[in-house]
């Protein structure tokens, strides 16, 4: 069996050079519209309605059960809530073609851009050499704070790194978990709360969090 290690050069060439076809602009909105159109028709009598109803109620029970379990097992309410907000912000950033307000891989362009817009200074570093290129920044609003969203890419996946100030040390949060299929890592340092969200696998996201923690607050 040809092992992956043996095919390293070929794999590397494909990963680096072969075209990754990004979804064309408008496809996301097209799907959004098509799904929205399809959704109400499920309730109308045109469909074998009661079968859907039955499925829906089964599903509702399953969701309720899983929500209850998550709440009990996972974390206190506020962690759950912030996680939800972070996941929602991440999904929204991917959905509405509003990934970044400032598109740049240059930390010296992104960092000053935040200066006039936030009352704190988020650390901005490009990790292209480590395989996590910076692709831009955005403003967001998480947990009742204006937050800096730093956007990184990993093998075509998007990582949103949210940063906001914590004034009260008691409210600093740390976690590493999976929610709705997204991986989340959070920690706080020097009065800043960091919250990463992405669909990259959890080990990679943790490795990325180590990079961020190790980085100096450069480009001041």
């Amino acid at each position, binding site marked *: *069996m*040809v092992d992956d290690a043996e*095919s390293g*050069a*070929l*794999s*590397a*060439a*494909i*990963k680096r*050079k*072969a*075209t*990754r*076809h*990004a*979804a*064309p602009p408008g*496809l*996301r909105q*097209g*799907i*959004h519209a*098509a*799904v*929205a159109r*399809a*959704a109400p028709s499920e309730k109308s009598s045109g469909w074998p309605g009661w079968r859907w109803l039955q*499925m*829906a109620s*089964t*599903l509702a029970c399953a969701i309720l059960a*899983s929500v209850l379990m998550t709440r009990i097992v996972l974390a206190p309410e506020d962690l759950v809530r912030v996680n939800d907000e972070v*996941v*929602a912000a991440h*999904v929204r950033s*991917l*959905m509405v073609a509003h990934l970044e307000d400032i598109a740049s891989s240059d930390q010296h362009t992104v960092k000053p851009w935040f200066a006039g817009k936030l009352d704190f200074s988020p650390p901005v570093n490009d990790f292209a050499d480590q395989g996590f290129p910076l692709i831009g920044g955005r403003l967001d609003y998480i947990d009742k704070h204006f937050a800096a969203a730093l956007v990184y890419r990993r*093998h*075509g996946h*998007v990582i949103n790194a949210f940063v906001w100030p914590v004034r009260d040390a008691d409210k600093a949060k740390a976690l590493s978990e999976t929610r*709705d*299929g*997204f991986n989340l890592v959070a920690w706080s340092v020097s009065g800043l709360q960091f919250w990463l969200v992405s*669909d990259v696998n959890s080990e990679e996201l943790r490795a990325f969090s180590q990079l961020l923690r190790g980085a100096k607050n450069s480009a001041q």
Partner: protein
Amino acid sequence: MTDRTKRFEAAALPHLDAAYNLARWLLRDDQNARDVVQEAYLRAFRFFDGFNGGDARPWLMRIVRNASYSWLHDSGRHADGVEFDEDKHSQEQVSDSALDRPNPEQALLQKIEAARLDAAIEDLPLAFREVLILREMDEMSYDEIAQVVAIPVGTVMSRLARARALLRAALCQERGETNGR
């Protein structure tokens, strides 16, 4: 927007680029890939109740993959390996000279132009192309690929090995030709 719609979009939309990339490589056409992906998403939405949580990616990619195959089938392009014969393809000969040159190959791969690599991948039979894309671009595990393509893990591994051998042979052969040998 209903709750179900929201959950569907949260689960499925993050994988849109991967879904489009797969369809585009299978169909080799922008417009068709676009149509097929949109249709596949709609299909996924209808069957979202059957999705039992966990990672939505293999589940979604399988639907996109099947929608691509249906499209190829309906448009009469089975010749492209839709009716795949494992034995026949596995017995195709790859010239040994192309495989026994690891060092020139490394140098070649480092220099190879993106367009030539793309063309060589596009020329692979469908069944090999798909496992290669899922493995190298989406970095899926053998297990996930097995789910997407609905074949045993062992078959994933042998197809992947075969895909790489064919690709190597194609690239080396091309180089031989351009060098006038």
